[in-house]
């Protein structure tokens, strides 16, 4: 792994107020340029975990570091710069009702001080890509649910952020558009953006060969991408084969149908998805 991950969680726990711990002992890295899915049943804490990542909530214990820096000791005035390097698609969109689609999407660029002449065409192109080329002047209230979701996605990716955090970004669009959006994320990832997508859509998860983080009962379980699992399985089989050859006659090693554990924590494996 990269010596300096974009985000590192170290024994992080989180609770709301005096409630129970929603997240417990999370320890993981998001390596630079990586792509991962985050799944788990409704209410498992996916949004809460993402909120920790985009610094909208503070952990109740543990250490989160961001580009190698401890988030807890980050001075307030460095926050804006950091936020500009992160794009977020919120589960509930959070568009600004008084701005049209174009201005909503252009917002991060304006805040970053870019000139309209510079970005106007890029924004238009991006909106066309997500199928909203003819809705640039519409206000969010006049958009369908899926259209609003696509505006939220466009706003998150328009600045080509270093990290993209998307919470259920395809919950309101049809499967075809979902694939299209996933392609957009993949494209962005190829250009170097670290991506984490929380989703319930297993169809989507199966589309990409990416690691899947699964939350359940507050614990995180990370399943490596299929390719890696295959490689590991082959390695295990090869080893078993070698063992068998070396020490025959012995019981054949049973084929592991359990996911190899990539993280070193001892969480329960959560639900299996296929």
């Amino acid at each position: 792994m990269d010596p300096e991950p974009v985000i590192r969680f170290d024994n992080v726990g989180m609770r709301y107020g005096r409630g129970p711990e929603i997240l417990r002992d999370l320890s993981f890295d998001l390596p630079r340029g990586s792509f991962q899915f985050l799944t788990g049943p409704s209410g498992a804490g996916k949004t809460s975990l993402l909120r920790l990542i985009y610094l909208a909530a503070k952990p109740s214990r543990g250490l989160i570091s961001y580009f190698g820096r401890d988030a807890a000791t980050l001075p307030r005035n460095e926050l804006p710069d950091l936020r500009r390097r992160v794009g977020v698609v919120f589960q509930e969109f959070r568009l600004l009702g008084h701005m049209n689609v174009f201005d909503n999407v252009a917002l991060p660029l304006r805040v970053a001080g870019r000139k309209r002449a510079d970005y106007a065409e890029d924004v238009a192109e991006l909106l066309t890509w997500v199928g909203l080329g003819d809705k640039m002047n519409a206000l969010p209230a006049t958009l369908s649910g899926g259209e609003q979701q696509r505006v939220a996605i466009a706003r998150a990716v328009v600045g080509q952020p270093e990290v993209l955090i998307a919470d259920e970004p395809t919950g309101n669009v049809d499967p075809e558009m979902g694939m299209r959006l996933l392609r957009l994320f993949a494209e962005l990832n190829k250009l170097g953006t670290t991506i984490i997508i929380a989703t319930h859509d297993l169809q989507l998860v199966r589309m990409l060969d990416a690691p899947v983080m699964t939350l359940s009962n507050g614990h995180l379980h990370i399943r490596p991408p299929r390719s890696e699992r295959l490689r590991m399985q082959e390695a295990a089989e090869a080893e078993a084969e070698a063992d068998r050859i070396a020490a025959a006659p012995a019981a054949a090693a049973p084929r592991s149908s359990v996911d190899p554990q990539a993280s070193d924590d001892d969480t329960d494996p959560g639900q299996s998805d296929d």
Partner: protein
Amino acid sequence: MTTRIRGRAMTNPIPKPPSGGNGRLLPPDAGRDRPLFVVAAILVFLACIAGLGARGAWLQAQRWTTDLETSLTIQVRPAEGRDAEADADRAAALTRAMPGVEQATSRGRDHALALLTPWLGEGNLPDDLPLPLLVDVRTRSGVTIDTAALQAQLDAEGMAARIDDHGRWANAVRRAAGTAQALGLGLLALLAGAAAAVIAFAARASLAARLDVIDALHLCGAEDRFIAGLFQRRFFMLGLKAGVAGAVFAGLVSLLVSLGDAPADMAFFLPQWASDPFEFVLLACAPVLAGLTAAISARLAVASDLRGRW
């Protein structure tokens, strides 16, 4: 990043981005802020009216005390073997020679008689009644006449003259004037305070409906200063506009009141249009103060909201 996606299969042509300037970062103040606007305008209007009224009371009270302080009366009593009228003229001349005296007029017997008529009835007094004659003296304001020296001079002339500096009334009038002024200032303070409080609260309420904007800007990486500045400017302009509306209306009302003829004494607490710079300063400052109040309370509210976020 989109430039690099451009190479990919894209079926529809890209439409032109909307022309025109950037959309406003804050919602236009059209519908939502109208209550704040109206409330602020009404209160600025009231505060201005109170200010002009207080000014009127102040001026009137000032006038009283000035009248009192810049006038003296010399009573020249008729004495055996002296011509009272000549004495009065002489006293007037002597007084005029004093430093600080602007005018000294000797009043004749008719004047003295006229003063007594209400009390004694007309035609009641014998013609040879020895009446004291009066000399009205008007001094330059701010100057104190050396009445002792004047009395000495008059005594030296051998007249039976007495100087009355109205000390008898002065205290009562001064107290009355002071009360009027305090009352005016109190009313002004009350209304200005109420206006400020109302504007501040209304600005806060208006802001509460916009937390989503703060939220979005904050998460996009806008600096606190930038966000607070946006709201501050917006609310300053709002307060300013409301203030101008209120002040202009107050000016019009006071002008109308001044044109109508209220009895001079009672016009006292009416907003007065003395047409001196004070009115303009007051009416010009009020909107600015309203704007500042709105801006500062908005800034504080935004800052406290932002501090609560990380």
